[in-house]
Protein backbone atom coordinates (compact mmCIF):
# COMPACT_ATOMS: atom_id res chain seq x y z
CA UNK A 1 0.00 0.00 0.00
CA UNK A 2 2.73 2.37 1.12
CA UNK A 3 4.86 1.33 -1.85
CA UNK A 4 1.97 2.00 -4.25
CA UNK A 5 1.43 5.49 -2.79
CA UNK A 6 5.10 6.39 -3.21
CA UNK A 7 5.04 5.17 -6.83
CA UNK A 8 2.01 7.36 -7.60
CA UNK A 9 3.63 10.41 -5.96
CA UNK A 10 6.87 9.80 -7.86
CA UNK A 11 4.95 9.38 -11.11
CA UNK A 12 3.06 12.64 -10.47
CA UNK A 13 6.29 14.49 -9.66
CA UNK A 14 7.91 13.13 -12.80
CA UNK A 15 4.96 14.23 -14.92
CA UNK A 16 4.95 17.65 -13.27
CA UNK A 17 8.69 17.98 -13.84
CA UNK A 18 8.33 16.98 -17.46
CA UNK A 19 5.58 19.54 -17.89
CA UNK A 20 7.71 22.34 -16.50
CA UNK A 21 10.54 21.37 -18.77
CA UNK A 22 8.31 21.70 -21.86
CA UNK A 23 7.06 25.10 -20.72
CA UNK A 24 10.57 26.38 -20.13
CA UNK A 25 11.60 25.94 -23.75
CA UNK A 26 9.85 28.36 -26.17
CA UNK A 27 8.61 27.00 -29.44
CA UNK A 28 11.15 27.41 -32.20
CA UNK A 29 9.83 27.99 -35.66
CA UNK A 30 10.82 29.81 -38.82
CA UNK A 31 10.02 33.10 -37.13
CA UNK A 32 12.79 32.43 -34.56
CA UNK A 33 12.50 32.12 -30.80
CA UNK A 34 9.78 34.77 -30.49
CA UNK A 35 6.64 33.38 -28.86
CA UNK A 36 3.52 33.28 -30.95
CA UNK A 37 1.82 36.00 -28.87
CA UNK A 38 4.84 38.30 -29.08
CA UNK A 39 5.64 40.65 -31.93
CA UNK A 40 8.91 39.87 -33.63
CA UNK A 41 11.10 42.81 -34.53
CA UNK A 42 10.59 44.10 -38.04
CA UNK A 43 13.54 44.72 -40.29
CA UNK A 44 13.57 48.23 -41.74
CA UNK A 45 12.38 48.27 -45.34
CA UNK A 46 15.26 48.76 -47.76
CA UNK A 47 15.08 51.60 -50.22
CA UNK A 48 15.94 51.16 -53.86
CA UNK A 49 18.95 53.09 -55.13
CA UNK A 50 17.39 56.18 -56.57
CA UNK A 51 19.58 57.02 -59.49
CA UNK A 52 23.11 55.73 -60.02
CA UNK A 53 25.49 55.15 -62.91
CA UNK A 54 25.26 51.78 -64.74
CA UNK A 55 26.50 48.85 -62.61
CA UNK A 56 29.36 46.69 -63.94
CA UNK A 57 28.46 43.11 -64.87
CA UNK A 58 29.95 40.26 -62.86
CA UNK A 59 29.70 37.49 -65.47
CA UNK A 60 29.34 37.37 -69.21
CA UNK A 61 25.68 36.45 -69.58
CA UNK A 62 24.48 38.59 -66.67
CA UNK A 63 21.45 40.74 -67.48
CA UNK A 64 22.57 44.28 -66.53
CA UNK A 65 21.22 45.42 -63.16
CA UNK A 66 18.90 48.43 -62.99
CA UNK A 67 20.84 51.28 -61.31
CA UNK A 68 17.73 53.39 -60.63
CA UNK A 69 14.39 52.99 -58.91
CA UNK A 70 11.49 51.75 -60.99
CA UNK A 71 8.57 52.43 -58.68
CA UNK A 72 5.26 52.72 -60.55
CA UNK A 73 6.88 51.84 -63.89
CA UNK A 74 4.19 49.72 -65.50
CA UNK A 75 4.93 46.94 -67.91
CA UNK A 76 1.81 45.48 -69.45
CA UNK A 77 0.45 44.58 -72.85
CA UNK A 78 -0.51 48.19 -73.54
CA UNK A 79 2.73 49.90 -72.64
CA UNK A 80 6.20 49.39 -71.23
CA UNK A 81 7.58 52.31 -69.24
CA UNK A 82 11.18 51.05 -69.50
CA UNK A 83 10.97 51.29 -73.28
CA UNK A 84 10.14 54.99 -73.14
CA UNK A 85 13.90 55.45 -72.54
CA UNK A 86 15.62 52.15 -73.42
CA UNK A 87 13.96 51.42 -76.79
CA UNK A 88 15.91 51.90 -80.01
CA UNK A 89 13.70 54.83 -80.94
CA UNK A 90 14.17 56.61 -77.62
CA UNK A 91 17.62 55.77 -76.23
CA UNK A 92 19.46 58.59 -78.05
CA UNK A 93 17.18 61.25 -76.68
CA UNK A 94 17.13 59.86 -73.16
CA UNK A 95 20.78 58.88 -72.98
CA UNK A 96 19.84 55.43 -71.67
CA UNK A 97 21.40 52.09 -72.62
CA UNK A 98 19.50 50.60 -75.54
CA UNK A 99 18.13 47.08 -75.30
CA UNK A 100 20.37 44.56 -77.05
CA UNK A 101 19.57 43.01 -80.41
CA UNK A 102 18.92 39.66 -78.72
CA UNK A 103 15.68 41.18 -77.42
CA UNK A 104 14.22 41.19 -80.91
CA UNK A 105 14.61 37.45 -81.43
CA UNK A 106 11.77 35.04 -80.93
CA UNK A 107 12.37 31.52 -79.70
CA UNK A 108 12.96 30.31 -83.27
CA UNK A 109 15.77 32.85 -83.56
CA UNK A 110 13.82 34.90 -86.07
CA UNK A 111 14.59 38.60 -85.70
CA UNK A 112 11.43 40.66 -85.33
CA UNK A 113 10.81 44.33 -86.05
CA UNK A 114 9.87 45.09 -82.44
CA UNK A 115 10.90 43.73 -79.05
CA UNK A 116 10.02 40.04 -78.80
CA UNK A 117 7.19 38.98 -76.49
CA UNK A 118 9.54 36.70 -74.56
CA UNK A 119 11.86 39.63 -73.82
CA UNK A 120 9.16 42.22 -73.23
CA UNK A 121 8.85 41.86 -69.46
CA UNK A 122 12.10 43.53 -68.44
CA UNK A 123 11.95 42.77 -64.71
CA UNK A 124 11.98 39.02 -65.32
CA UNK A 125 15.74 39.38 -65.77
CA UNK A 126 16.68 42.98 -64.91
CA UNK A 127 16.23 44.02 -61.29
CA UNK A 128 16.74 47.24 -59.32
CA UNK A 129 19.16 47.20 -56.37
CA UNK A 130 19.06 48.05 -52.68
CA UNK A 131 22.13 48.67 -50.55
CA UNK A 132 21.90 45.43 -48.54
CA UNK A 133 24.40 42.97 -47.10
CA UNK A 134 24.11 39.42 -48.53
CA UNK A 135 22.06 37.13 -46.25
CA UNK A 136 24.54 34.27 -46.73
CA UNK A 137 28.28 34.39 -47.30
CA UNK A 138 29.19 34.66 -50.95
CA UNK A 139 32.74 34.33 -52.25
CA UNK A 140 31.91 34.72 -55.92
CA UNK A 141 34.57 36.64 -57.84
CA UNK A 142 34.08 37.92 -61.39
CA UNK A 143 36.69 36.70 -63.84
CA UNK A 144 39.51 38.97 -64.97
CA UNK A 145 38.20 39.07 -68.53
CA UNK A 146 35.23 41.03 -67.20
CA UNK A 147 36.86 43.23 -64.60
CA UNK A 148 39.94 43.96 -66.73
CA UNK A 149 42.26 43.08 -63.79
CA UNK A 150 45.61 41.46 -64.57
Amino acid at each position, binding site marked *: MMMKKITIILALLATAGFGTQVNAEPVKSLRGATDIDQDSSVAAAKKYN*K*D*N*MPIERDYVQQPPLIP*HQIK*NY*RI*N*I*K*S*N*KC*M*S*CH*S*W*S*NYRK*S*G*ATKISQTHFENRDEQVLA*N*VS*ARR*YFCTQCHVPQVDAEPLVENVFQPVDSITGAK
Partner: protein
Amino acid sequence: MSNKKSKECNDMILCRIWQLLKKPSVSYSLGTLLIVGFISGIIFWGGFNTAMEMTNNEEFCISCHEMEDNVYQEYKETIHYSNRTGVRATCPDCHVPKEWHHKVVRKIQASNELLHKALGTIDTREKFEGKRLTLAKHVWEAMEKTDSRECRNCHNFEFMDFTEQGRRAVKAHSEGLDAGGTCIDCHKGIAHELPDMHEVDPGSSIGDI
Protein backbone atom coordinates in the same frame (compact mmCIF):
# COMPACT_ATOMS: atom_id res chain seq x y z
CA MET B 1 -46.32 103.16 -84.48
CA SER B 2 -46.91 102.45 -80.81
CA ASN B 3 -50.18 100.76 -81.69
CA LYS B 4 -48.41 98.52 -84.10
CA LYS B 5 -45.79 97.63 -81.48
CA SER B 6 -48.29 96.77 -78.73
CA LYS B 7 -50.23 94.72 -81.25
CA GLU B 8 -47.12 92.69 -81.96
CA CYS B 9 -46.49 92.35 -78.28
CA ASN B 10 -49.89 90.77 -77.67
CA ASP B 11 -48.58 87.67 -79.36
CA MET B 12 -45.06 87.57 -77.94
CA ILE B 13 -44.46 87.14 -74.23
CA LEU B 14 -40.77 88.02 -74.43
CA CYS B 15 -41.63 91.30 -76.08
CA ARG B 16 -44.06 92.16 -73.27
CA ILE B 17 -41.43 91.43 -70.65
CA TRP B 18 -39.01 93.68 -72.52
CA GLN B 19 -41.61 96.48 -72.59
CA LEU B 20 -42.06 96.11 -68.83
CA LEU B 21 -38.32 96.20 -68.17
CA LYS B 22 -37.88 99.27 -70.34
CA LYS B 23 -40.32 101.34 -68.32
CA PRO B 24 -38.87 103.39 -65.41
CA SER B 25 -39.95 102.26 -61.96
CA VAL B 26 -42.88 104.29 -60.57
CA SER B 27 -43.46 102.77 -57.12
CA TYR B 28 -39.91 101.94 -55.81
CA SER B 29 -37.23 104.43 -54.89
CA LEU B 30 -33.87 104.30 -56.64
CA GLY B 31 -32.25 103.46 -53.26
CA THR B 32 -34.47 100.41 -52.75
CA LEU B 33 -33.80 99.19 -56.24
CA LEU B 34 -30.05 99.66 -55.76
CA ILE B 35 -29.96 97.87 -52.39
CA VAL B 36 -32.15 94.98 -53.55
CA GLY B 37 -30.13 94.70 -56.72
CA PHE B 38 -26.86 94.74 -54.80
CA ILE B 39 -27.94 92.09 -52.29
CA SER B 40 -29.45 89.76 -54.88
CA GLY B 41 -26.27 90.25 -56.93
CA ILE B 42 -24.20 88.95 -54.04
CA ILE B 43 -26.57 86.01 -53.51
CA PHE B 44 -26.58 85.02 -57.18
CA TRP B 45 -22.84 85.44 -57.62
CA GLY B 46 -22.07 83.58 -54.40
CA GLY B 47 -24.55 80.89 -55.30
CA PHE B 48 -23.01 80.49 -58.73
CA ASN B 49 -19.52 80.12 -57.33
CA THR B 50 -20.69 77.79 -54.56
CA ALA B 51 -22.43 75.57 -57.11
CA MET B 52 -19.28 75.59 -59.23
CA GLU B 53 -17.09 74.63 -56.28
CA MET B 54 -19.51 71.86 -55.31
CA THR B 55 -18.85 70.26 -58.69
CA ASN B 56 -15.14 70.85 -58.31
CA ASN B 57 -14.00 68.26 -55.80
CA GLU B 58 -12.98 64.64 -55.83
CA GLU B 59 -16.15 63.47 -54.08
CA PHE B 60 -18.27 64.89 -56.89
CA CYS B 61 -15.99 63.51 -59.61
CA ILE B 62 -16.18 59.95 -58.33
CA SER B 63 -19.93 60.07 -57.77
CA CYS B 64 -20.05 58.70 -61.33
CA HIS B 65 -19.07 55.04 -61.46
CA GLU B 66 -17.19 55.66 -64.72
CA MET B 67 -14.73 57.76 -62.79
CA GLU B 68 -14.68 55.78 -59.55
CA ASP B 69 -14.22 52.33 -61.09
CA ASN B 70 -11.62 53.24 -63.69
CA VAL B 71 -9.48 56.32 -63.37
CA TYR B 72 -9.87 56.76 -59.60
CA GLN B 73 -8.72 53.22 -58.80
CA GLU B 74 -5.63 53.73 -60.95
CA TYR B 75 -4.91 57.12 -59.44
CA LYS B 76 -5.02 55.61 -55.94
CA GLU B 77 -1.79 53.74 -56.65
CA THR B 78 0.15 56.80 -57.74
CA ILE B 79 2.24 59.43 -56.00
CA HIS B 80 -0.40 62.11 -56.40
CA TYR B 81 -2.71 60.11 -54.12
CA SER B 82 -0.32 58.74 -51.51
CA ASN B 83 3.19 59.99 -50.82
CA ARG B 84 5.84 60.83 -48.26
CA THR B 85 4.47 64.21 -47.16
CA GLY B 86 0.74 63.53 -47.47
CA VAL B 87 0.14 66.41 -49.87
CA ARG B 88 -2.45 65.31 -52.40
CA ALA B 89 -3.47 66.46 -55.85
CA THR B 90 -7.14 65.59 -56.30
CA CYS B 91 -9.01 65.28 -59.63
CA PRO B 92 -9.81 69.01 -60.15
CA ASP B 93 -6.27 70.07 -59.18
CA CYS B 94 -5.06 68.57 -62.45
CA HIS B 95 -8.19 68.53 -64.61
CA VAL B 96 -9.83 71.90 -63.85
CA PRO B 97 -7.94 75.18 -64.29
CA LYS B 98 -7.53 77.44 -61.26
CA GLU B 99 -8.01 80.80 -63.00
CA TRP B 100 -11.65 81.82 -63.12
CA HIS B 101 -12.25 82.27 -66.84
CA HIS B 102 -10.35 79.11 -67.85
CA LYS B 103 -12.34 77.30 -65.17
CA VAL B 104 -15.69 78.48 -66.57
CA VAL B 105 -14.66 77.48 -70.09
CA ARG B 106 -13.73 74.00 -68.82
CA LYS B 107 -17.00 73.74 -66.91
CA ILE B 108 -18.95 74.56 -70.07
CA GLN B 109 -16.97 71.91 -71.95
CA ALA B 110 -17.98 69.47 -69.22
CA SER B 111 -21.57 69.59 -70.50
CA ASN B 112 -20.28 67.32 -73.28
CA GLU B 113 -19.22 64.86 -70.58
CA LEU B 114 -22.74 65.00 -69.14
CA LEU B 115 -24.13 64.13 -72.56
CA HIS B 116 -21.86 61.08 -72.81
CA LYS B 117 -22.75 60.10 -69.24
CA ALA B 118 -26.39 60.06 -70.36
CA LEU B 119 -25.53 58.17 -73.56
CA GLY B 120 -23.50 55.64 -71.54
CA THR B 121 -20.49 56.01 -73.84
CA ILE B 122 -18.04 54.55 -71.30
CA ASP B 123 -20.37 52.86 -68.83
CA THR B 124 -18.52 49.52 -68.83
CA ARG B 125 -14.84 48.69 -68.34
CA GLU B 126 -14.66 47.37 -71.92
CA LYS B 127 -16.16 50.54 -73.39
CA PHE B 128 -13.79 52.63 -71.27
CA GLU B 129 -10.73 50.65 -72.39
CA GLY B 130 -11.91 51.03 -75.97
CA LYS B 131 -12.03 54.81 -75.62
CA ARG B 132 -8.92 55.15 -73.43
CA LEU B 133 -6.55 56.26 -76.19
CA THR B 134 -8.99 58.89 -77.48
CA LEU B 135 -9.67 60.22 -74.00
CA ALA B 136 -5.98 60.28 -73.09
CA LYS B 137 -5.17 62.12 -76.31
CA HIS B 138 -7.72 64.80 -75.43
CA VAL B 139 -6.00 65.41 -72.11
CA TRP B 140 -2.49 65.36 -73.65
CA GLU B 141 -3.55 67.85 -76.34
CA ALA B 142 -5.13 70.17 -73.78
CA MET B 143 -1.99 69.98 -71.63
CA GLU B 144 0.27 70.70 -74.59
CA LYS B 145 -1.86 73.66 -75.58
CA THR B 146 -1.72 75.23 -72.12
CA ASP B 147 1.96 74.37 -71.50
CA SER B 148 0.82 71.94 -68.75
CA ARG B 149 -0.77 74.80 -66.84
CA GLU B 150 -2.38 72.61 -64.19
CA CYS B 151 0.92 70.81 -63.44
CA ARG B 152 2.55 74.18 -62.96
CA ASN B 153 0.09 75.18 -60.27
CA CYS B 154 2.39 73.11 -58.04
CA HIS B 155 5.47 72.22 -60.11
CA ASN B 156 7.43 75.16 -61.42
CA PHE B 157 10.58 74.81 -63.53
CA GLU B 158 11.95 78.09 -62.20
CA PHE B 159 11.91 76.89 -58.63
CA MET B 160 13.21 73.37 -59.26
CA ASP B 161 16.50 72.67 -57.53
CA PHE B 162 18.27 70.47 -60.06
CA THR B 163 20.96 69.60 -57.52
CA GLU B 164 18.33 67.79 -55.48
CA GLN B 165 17.21 65.74 -58.46
CA GLY B 166 18.47 62.40 -59.72
CA ARG B 167 20.90 62.05 -62.59
CA ARG B 168 18.21 61.20 -65.11
CA ALA B 169 15.84 63.96 -63.94
CA VAL B 170 18.51 66.68 -64.14
CA LYS B 171 19.30 65.74 -67.75
CA ALA B 172 15.68 65.52 -68.84
CA HIS B 173 14.60 68.69 -67.03
CA SER B 174 17.49 70.91 -68.11
CA GLU B 175 17.22 69.74 -71.72
CA GLY B 176 13.44 69.99 -71.63
CA LEU B 177 13.63 73.54 -70.37
CA ASP B 178 16.00 74.53 -73.18
CA ALA B 179 13.94 72.82 -75.86
CA GLY B 180 10.76 74.55 -74.69
CA GLY B 181 9.19 71.25 -73.72
CA THR B 182 6.24 70.85 -71.42
CA CYS B 183 5.57 68.44 -68.55
CA ILE B 184 3.16 66.17 -70.42
CA ASP B 185 5.74 65.50 -73.18
CA CYS B 186 7.41 62.98 -70.86
CA HIS B 187 5.08 62.62 -67.87
CA LYS B 188 2.26 60.71 -69.52
CA GLY B 189 0.39 58.11 -67.54
CA ILE B 190 1.62 59.33 -64.16
CA ALA B 191 -1.79 59.35 -62.49
CA HIS B 192 -3.70 56.84 -64.62
CA GLU B 193 -2.81 53.79 -66.66
CA LEU B 194 -1.54 54.46 -70.14
CA PRO B 195 -3.63 53.46 -73.15
CA ASP B 196 -2.18 51.08 -75.74
CA MET B 197 0.89 53.10 -76.72
CA HIS B 198 1.64 51.23 -79.93
CA GLU B 199 0.25 54.03 -82.04
CA VAL B 200 1.91 56.79 -80.01
CA ASP B 201 5.36 55.24 -79.48
CA PRO B 202 5.69 51.90 -81.32
CA GLY B 203 8.94 51.05 -79.53
CA SER B 204 7.37 51.19 -76.07
CA SER B 205 4.53 48.77 -76.63
CA ILE B 206 4.40 45.20 -77.83
CA GLY B 207 1.60 45.88 -80.30
CA ASP B 208 0.13 42.92 -82.13
CA ILE B 209 1.76 39.69 -81.07
